[in-house]
């Protein structure tokens, strides 16, 4: 994959051995929003992974006397209705939410892009694949999830342990039920791209389909894929909380951002800060990923990079 780029950017005279990826990085660096996004995202990831090493309170520890406390030295973000430390819960929840959000988004986007490209490119598969997409769009989500959980929970829990099993179940459940939009969008774009002159040109020199897709089609459908990906993270984080709430996900005392947000809603009027933290965390994550996506898109577009 990495040895080919010289052919892809012939217009750009290469300076001594610099690969295309350096150009991409240069362009990415010059995108202020993207750098800022990357910094915020890095900060969030670091604080939820390394934070618990510094802030060692257990997220599930109940200190009943300290319940509903406001911000203080002992509890910088306050405590919840059972006296659990919200900072610790936010960090523990962030690990899960970010992991679920990214993984589920990847599954859904890869699946969606693959099906979309194949359906758009190979006419023979189009009817079948779009039928499949329609089927998945039409299936009522809740019964589908219930069936998946019923069929696979025990098996997964047995082979990967209860926590990893639940994680795999959740990300695949979210991924499998959310790829359809990406697939439809990508297919629509591919249908149009296929008739463009550069594709015809590539075809006329006998480029095989595989290379045609990877080299000519995929880079050109990248921006809708990027948008789907950013939006997908937000959806995945929220969907995860809905799943746990239905009892299809993690155990009830296991905090995630979506769940913290959901639980805090009843207390919106008394303790507005409780919805603020998870709401802010989810929004910031999505926003930073969005800017990273913007930067990447610009960086990967040779027309912009050339300027």
């Amino acid at each position: 994959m990495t040895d080919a780029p010289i052919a892809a950017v012939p217009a750009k005279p290469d300076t001594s051995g610099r690969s295309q990826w350096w150009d991409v990085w240069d362009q990415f660096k010059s995108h202020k929003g993207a750098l800022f996004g990357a910094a915020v995202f890095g900060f969030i990831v670091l604080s939820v992974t390394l934070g618990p090493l510094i802030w060692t309170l257990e997220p599930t520890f109940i200190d009943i006397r300290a319940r509903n406390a406001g911000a203080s030295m002992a509890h910088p973000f306050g405590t919840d209705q059972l006296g659990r430390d919200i900072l610790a819960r936010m960090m523990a929840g962030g690990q899960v939410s970010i992991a679920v959000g990214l993984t589920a988004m990847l599954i859904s986007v890869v699946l969606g892009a693959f099906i979309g490209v194949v359906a758009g490119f190979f006419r023979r598969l189009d009817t079948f694949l779009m039928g499949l997409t329609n089927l998945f769009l039409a299936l009522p989500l809740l019964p589908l999830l219930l069936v998946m959980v019923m069929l696979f929970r025990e098996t997964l829990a047995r082979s990967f342990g209860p926590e990893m099993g639940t994680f795999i179940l959740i990300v695949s459940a979210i991924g499998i039920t959310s790829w359809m939009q990406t697939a439809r969008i990508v297919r629509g774009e591919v249908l149009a791209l296929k008739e463009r002159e550069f594709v015809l040109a590539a075809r006329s020199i006998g480029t095989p389909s595989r290379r045609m897709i990877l080299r000519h089609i995929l880079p050109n459908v990248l921006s809708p894929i990027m948008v789907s990906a950013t939006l997908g993270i937000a959806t995945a984080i929220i969907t995860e909380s809905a799943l746990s709430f239905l009892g299809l996900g993690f155990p009830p005392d296991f905090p995630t951002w979506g769940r913290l947000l959901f639980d805090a809603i009843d207390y919106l009027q008394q303790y507005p800060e409780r919805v603020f933290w998870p709401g802010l965390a989810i929004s910031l994550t999505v926003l930073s990923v969005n800017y990273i996506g913007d930067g990447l898109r610009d960086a990967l577009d040779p027309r912009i990079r050339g300027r």
Partner: protein
Amino acid sequence: MRLKTILMGAVAAMAIAPVAHAERGSDGEVKIIYWQAPSILNPYLSGGTKDIESSSLIVEPLARFDETGGLVPWLVDEVPTVENGGVAADLTSITWKIKEGLLWSDGTPFTSADVKFTADYCMAPDGGCAQSAKFDGVASIETPDERTVIVKFTGPKPVPYAAFVGAQSPIIQKAQFENCLGAKAQECTSANFGPIGTGPFVVTDFKPNDVITMKANENYRDAAKPAFATLTFKGGGDAAAAGRAVMETGEFDYAWNLQLAPDVIAKMAEGGKGKPVSGFGTLVERIEMNMTDPSPDLPEGERSTAKHPHPILSDEKVRRALSMAIDRDLLVEIGYGQAGRPTCNLVPAPEQFASDNTDCLKQDVEGAKALLEEAGWTVGADGVREKDGKKLKLLYQSSTNAVRQDFQALVKQWWTDIGVETELKNIDSSVFFGGDPASPDTFQKFYADVEMYANNFDGTDPEQYLGQYTCEKAPRPETQWQGENINRYCDPAYDELVAELGKTGEISKRAEIAKKLNDMITKESMTIVPLVDRGRVSAHSNSLGGVVLNTWDSELWNAADWYRVK
């Protein structure tokens, strides 16, 4: 504290408020909100609380329970008893005498034929009547004249107040439902959506799972009632939104069953447009212990069956220790506030049936630890107790509900303190309480070590309720996992005592046996660990007068007496 002040205020306000001697329909519109929406207005086809209570505005029973649990005559002159000769001395029949001049809302006379028809309707085979248990033991119904109904039983019936008593068993009109017997019951949409009744209101429009609009019944027996000309019954949403609509925005007059944390309700009450009211019934939140082994290693069909006793919980000492570690007062404070009280009884009310069992109320962590030591469970390296290389680890499941998840977290912590590792699991209630034998997650299947839910009984007699814990009622593969003895508790002495209760007529004797049964299954064997006696919290607007919260019957039982405070 705050809630209490408000409640006291409400009582005071009620005492001062002048009783309106208005005429029918003079107070305009009253709006009720239930966060579960009624799907049908025929309580014989759906036993859901929402359906029963909404239809209780329209159709009425012969007698019903008041807010103290006492029987009051409703469509009859008096409640028949052995003393007044209404119940035969041998307890095999009961005679109801219908009020004179009673009319249906369509203006036709209400007769004994309608009462007899109601029984025929519910007892018809293939009808799928939800209340047919109320007619168990009814041999025949005779109607010697237009106002007399004699119900004959197959044997002596110590408590003959099941059929035609309470909101579950109202009288429906023969003329309207005549062609809806048996399998046809399902097809009578217009009758099921707009039954003709004797109640204070009649349906003008029913949008299932959404809204019912009603107007005052022209032919209601009290010419001055109801005070409201129209009634809107909105359904759907969640408890928080319903509470908000009554207490904060004042859009509605009455909100049912606000299952919310006490501080959330108190905050809403500060809105000043309405106030919460609460009352107690027989609903008990409890932890049930699985007496059989739910291990996934066992072959399907043997999990959670009597074939394999539970490796940990079969020991009474462990069960007792688990109960001792729980601080019930704190659970009440966090989860229910004024609408709950700690209890050790499965049957917390009525008073004469409630055992004086209070041993469990005091949390005793040290005692619990000692008991576990005694049972041979010693603390291992990671703080979790073990015995013969087996860890003391339990799976604790419940339905999805904010208060239940808080309880799970608290109990988990207490159990961790005494060295019991707990894994929590919550399941959506439509699956948990659904009896699908194919699902591993139903409460009947009980593929967990302990589980928590609440249950109660209709009316005031606990015989059927206590009778659920006999050996043959255990859910198992042969019964398609149906059955009420969730714990798979099995004690021949208990079964004998249940049989004896069925034969005893004298009320004090019955109370004695019921208490004994209650004690056997709670404090003596710790099979069921009651936590909280759950009351009902509803809310009404400040301008709605006459509300008397009744947990023994429909909450809307006295809607005819409601009025607008001016």
